[in-house]
């Protein structure tokens, strides 16, 4: 029985498998995070920045998304390389 490998799964579907779960996680994470913390009270690294609340929430969300994307990419990479390794080992 064939198992799907990176070379068989279309690129778009691989991209979605990484982008989509991380998107959902980013929504939950920013929801919980920003309920607890007001971006107005958070001054990262003592930087003197003045941005609108919408910008702060948006950047926060995108940062969460990037973090989750990195994690999903890791999972994706290890899954694919494990399959290649197992295939090389034979049944």
């Amino acid at each position, binding site marked *: *029985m*064939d*198992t*799907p490998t990176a070379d*068989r*799964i*279309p690129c778009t*579907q691989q991209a*979605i*498998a990484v982008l*989509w779960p991380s998107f959902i996680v980013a929504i939950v994470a920013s*929801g*919980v995070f*920003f*309920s*607890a913390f*007001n971006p107005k009270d958070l001054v990262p690294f003592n930087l003197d920045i003045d941005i*609108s*609340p*919408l*910008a702060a*929430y*948006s950047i926060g969300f995108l940062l969460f998304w990037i973090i989750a994307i990195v994690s999903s990419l890791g999972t994706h990479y290890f899954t694919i390389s494990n399959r290649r390794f197992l295939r090389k080992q034979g049944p």
Partner: protein
Amino acid sequence: MQAQPANNDGNPLYAAHKKIYPREAHGRFARLRVLSLLTLLGIYYLTPLLQWDGRQAILFDLPARKFYLFGLTLWPQDFIYLAGLLILAGLALFFFTALLGRVWCGYACPQTVWTEAYLWMERKIEGNRSQQMKLDKAPISAAKIRTKALKHTVWIAFSLWTGFTFVAYFTPIDVLANNLFNGNLGPWELFWILFYSFATYGNAGFMREQVCMYMCPYARFQSAMFDSDTLIVAYHPERGEARGSRRRGVDPKTVGLGDCIDCNVCVQVCPTGIDIRDGLQYECIACSACIDACDEIMDKMSYPRGLIRYTTENSSKGNPQHILRPRILVYATILLVLCGALLTHVSQRVALDLDVIRDRNTLYRETRDGLIENVYTLKILNMDSASHRYTLRADGIDGLKLVTDRPELEVAAGSVHETVVRLQADEFNLEQRSVPVRFHLQALDANHLSIIEEARFVGPGKS
């Protein structure tokens, strides 16, 4: 059929995509679906236009960190209600799945709703299924480019309207419309309008059934809620087989055939491109288009309807049917208990909050009269929609004195008032180094608006 990569169970998964051209279905379930789609789209596009007390009725006001829900104003502290609501929605999905199968997928899921809307626009512009297929196969011509350009323009316009409406849940719609027409749209508002529009355009215009097959977590685990009494869309093989074409008016039994004339219309109407006659499949979103299509054919052949129908595994096998069964009762009980708890909690919610912060610089000091004094900063949060006057008192230590500039505090609706108060106590009455004290805040004009907040009073301790 060409070989497809398959997963371990042999189901085709991650197949190369072939465009599906669903044929339009007519009938009672199609009408029901259109009614449901129009209602849901109406709710989505019209809700931001609703007004309540001079403001938008439903608004997530991010800069002010408030969520307006008609008469209710929720603060970040009330996040628990939103979480509760989401859990409730999840449980309701379980309950309805166990009872009615994938009705959510077929009639209410945004993916279905917007896909149907985009399919409708596509049909209006490119024509029916065979005209669409012909157009796609045709070589590039001015007419083809014109038709395609028109379709994408209409799709993009509808997507932009969808994106605009989405952002209007976060920025009041009148402000947003004003900014848009005056060219004052903020960069992030523009970003989110475009982001949401792009997602709508992609999901409803192109990805369609692939979202259900590859991206939807519910589609993967919904079968866990299924049992033999769950409503499913199924073909009746005993009645339909052996399938085959025949002339109208011929009794199928005389030619050794069942009721299925193998016209393939059920496959053509399927938005996920499956053949329902192969049995229950996880791609099936129970949209019931094949039921309507088959009923139409049965009518034409003067056969009874229902060769493809809503049924349950038990009833199709002739077993007794159970609507009330342990699974349903358990889901219903949990749902009712949680619903009741959430409603009680919301109705008992006190629209008042008090934060007590002890002065961090000095633990305590001694007054001229020899009393021990602690300083506190109080943050009074009036979450009500009217302004109120409050009185404050403190207890916990014998003879505890509250020293404040103002005996009465006025806090405007939906705002925070900060005030500094001092507590004084006789060292003689302090049992330990740190004693718990309680602040009582009471609205003068509303009895139910009262709150008690604990704090620590620090002294030198018994030596």
